[in-house]
């Protein structure tokens, strides 16, 4: 079955991103396909490579990057939500005159249309948030 996942909260503060990750990993282990993981609202904060969580804690961002790499997942950060919250790739930095980027490997920034498309192309869309 083709699934998509919507993540509405950032890392650590709410369990949403943790639950979404565990769900994604379980779905992949069962042989389902994940069409897209879309990060919206504060969920865009899952896509920063600048986090340094405590050594004995999980690394939420790099865990997504790794899962994405292993399974060629499409990890999409909503551009409008990212602009409000300061998640930036090279193109965004250039367009908005920012002197640094922080997007993590394996993520890309794109429009909200990617969420609607995910809903259309997937058999199921599951939301995780607060």
């Amino acid at each position: 079955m083709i699934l998509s996942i919507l993540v509405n909260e950032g890392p650590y503060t709410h369990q949403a991103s943790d639950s979404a990750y565990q769900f994604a990993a379980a779905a992949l282990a069962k042989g389902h396909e994940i069409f897209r993981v879309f990060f919206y609202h504060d969920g865009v904060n899952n896509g920063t490579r600048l986090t340094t969580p405590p050594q004995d804690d999980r690394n939420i961002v790099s865990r997504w990057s790794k899962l994405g790499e292993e399974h060629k997942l499409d990890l999409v950060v909503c551009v409008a939500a990212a602009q409000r919250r300061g998640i930036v790739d090279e193109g965004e930095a250039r367009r908005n005159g920012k002197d640094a980027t922080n997007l993590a490997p394996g993520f890309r920034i794109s429009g909200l249309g990617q969420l609607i498309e995910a809903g259309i192309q997937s058999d199921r869309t599951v939301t995780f948030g607060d």
Partner: protein
Amino acid sequence: MTTKKFMIVNRKAPYGTVYALESLEVVLIGAAFEQDVSLAFMDDGVYQLKKGHQTKGIGMKAFEKTYGALEDYDVTKLYVDQESMAARGLTPEDLCVPVEMMPRADLGKLMEDQDVVLSF
């Protein structure tokens, strides 16, 4: 393109959190993709439609008029939960746009009929 039934369920008050505003952005994009988009308002979400937002004092932009503009995007299915309105002392006359009021149980049945439900 395939047309699916998308329902955007709004259960949070406006301004206290950004969800109401950012869910409207989803609605507009869904309409641009020519999907069958409807909106449901339940619990504190019914407050989003309360007319007369004056946001100057809190320094935020009011987005009340976006609800009125939804019709221009062919988004006309706005369902409001009767019980939520009653618990807040609200009537349809208090709202900024015409909506369809329905009992909670009927709204539940309508959800069952959707392809994608996005809840904010």
